[in-house]
């Protein structure tokens, strides 16, 4: 029983993680789940970057006693990914800080409720009327009735 090709499996894992992360960012309604989806997408992107430096049958890029191995994997993507992992965790902590701040201000993490709150606050701060949105049909008859009555 022969296992499938290693490159095919690795690209499946990387693109699967990127796809599932993008799907979660688009489809999820809760901010914590969106942050988790961004973390998944980061992991998939790191895996894809690591795959660019991989060479079949090579050894780890470690020089022992000054002897450079004949065939070793590319160490540059490894250094980049090492930095990207740490930066990703820092960005994740920053995102969770913003989520905590939103929760203390508005008391909800549902993006649909948050959008109405933010639109109202932005319109109030800018001094303009509320822009048309999904709940505009509820407002239009009231305005028309008020205009017709006066």
């Amino acid at each position, binding site marked *: 029983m022969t296992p499938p090709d290693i490159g095919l499996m*690795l690209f499946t894992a990387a693109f699967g993680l990127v796809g599932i992360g993008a799907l979660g960012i688009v489809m999820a309604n809760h901010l*914590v789940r969106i942050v988790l*989806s961004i973390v998944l997408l980061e992991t998939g992107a790191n895996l894809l970057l690591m795959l660019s430096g991989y060479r079949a049958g090579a050894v780890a890029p470690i020089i022992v006693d000054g002897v450079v191995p004949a065939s070793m994997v590319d160490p540059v993507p490894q250094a980049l990914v090492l930095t990207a992992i740490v930066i990703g*965790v820092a960005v994740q902590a920053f995102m969770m800080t913003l989520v905590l701040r939103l929760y203390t201000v508005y008391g909800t993490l549902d993006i649909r409720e948050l959008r109405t709150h933010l639109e109202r606050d932005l319109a109030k701060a800018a001094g303009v009327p509320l822009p048309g949105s999904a709940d505009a049909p509820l407002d239009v008859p009231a305005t028309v009735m008020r205009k017709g009555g006066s």
Partner: protein
Amino acid sequence: MESLANWIVLLATVIMLVGAVAVLVLQNYLAAVAATSVVSLGAAVIFVVLRAPDVALTEAAVGAGLSGVIMALCLRRLGLHRIEGTAASAPQAGADTDGDS
């Protein structure tokens, strides 16, 4: 030897994809954070097979450990950390929170 590495990569790939789907479908947010850590651990295994032991160490310690701790502490402050019940029924449940540690 190469065949063994292929089997390990197949196992890690399946675990990572199942964990990634679990992040999106699990109702409990603490379980979703644990699934994210599982995905990071699978990525660490794949990094070892890709001849990058330093990246694997960092991914396991920072990506799985530290990020999971940060997310769990944030969930505790957000009040979403209860194990019992779903996230919707958790706020009014006051008596059944003695079991979780």
